[in-house]
């Protein structure tokens, strides 16, 4: 069950700087650990995060094993037009999660 928490303002004035926050549930297993019987635990992390604003990419991050579980991203953008902000997380073992939020710009 991959769940995400998204915080995007519902309304903004044209030209405003808006803050976007995302939090996703993921174990972020580093691949450097071993089980109690010495078997290596395979890496299982999110490797990329992309945010698009009306299909235009506005933020991208590449994630590495040192990043803690349940990665949290906070970034800003400028409210240019009403529309949809989409988020995509991709990772090991075919992990794919998406979320979206709509914004009205006045």
């Amino acid at each position, binding site marked *: 069950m991959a769940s995400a928490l998204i915080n995007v303002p519902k309304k903004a004035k044209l030209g405003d700087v808006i803050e976007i926050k995302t*939090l996703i*549930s993921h174990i972020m297993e580093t691949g450097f650990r071993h089980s109690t019987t010495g078997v290596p635990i395979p890496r299982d992390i999110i490797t990329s995060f992309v945010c698009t604003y009306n299909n235009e990419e506005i933020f991208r991050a590449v994630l590495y094993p040192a990043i803690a579980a349940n990665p949290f991203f906070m970034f800003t953008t400028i409210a240019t037009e009403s529309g949809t902000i989409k988020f995509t997380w991709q990772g090991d073992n075919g992990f794919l999660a998406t979320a979206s939020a709509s914004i009205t710009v006045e």
Partner: protein
Amino acid sequence: MRVPKRTQWLAPAAMLLGFAAVEVVSAPAEIPLGERRSGYADLAPDTKAMQDDDTANPGMLWVQDGEALWNAKSGAANRACADCHNDARTTMTGVAARYPAFDSKLGRPIDLEQRINLCRAERQQAPAFAYESKELLSLSAFIGKQSRGEPITPPTDERLRPFLEAGLEQFNRRQGQLNLSCGQCHNDNWGKRLAGSLIPQAHPTGYPLYRLEWQAVGSLQRRLRNCIAGMRAEPYDYGAREFVSLELYLMWRARGLPIETPAVRP
């Protein structure tokens, strides 16, 4: 070592439980009511901000899953929690603040996790969730969150008295290779440092909570097992009666403090 006299401690307990109170004296080792504070007060500003913002608090991921479980039909009875309890936002307010509570059928107190599993067994005819499973933590976090801001109000039930006493006894009993009691750190030396870490007063205000060290949500019993292992004593099994007594005493000790579930701690 300071050992609280049981009679002295029992005076306020008797008031609480509705017995004839002889005199109100607080036990010597116990923290005065006015000086008690949640571990939240000692958090770093970043951690406080994380707990305060529901979109930054990772515990909310568990709450979100718990809400889905609340509404999901389960077991042979094909019934969801919501089918009996309706909207948790109104029906579950204050519930987590009064557990552990006495179960007359079992003749002993049970904590919220055990209550959830009893409901599953009796009403939903579904298998119990394992301790520390994602499901049980999610559901208890979701139910706990409905009591956020509510003061901890242990039940005034006379039948709880022996268990409360047992909890107090455990709290003040020296144990393990280090020969320490819970009270030696959390009553006598709170606010000081143990290695680099601040010793909190150990009030269970925000469980189940997100611990940065765990990178996950965990129950009060998980935390207690950590503490017991730290004293180099053998931890009780999950769900042990000793744990429920200790939880009962800790909730009584934290009476009046607001619930913070899901809290964030380092």
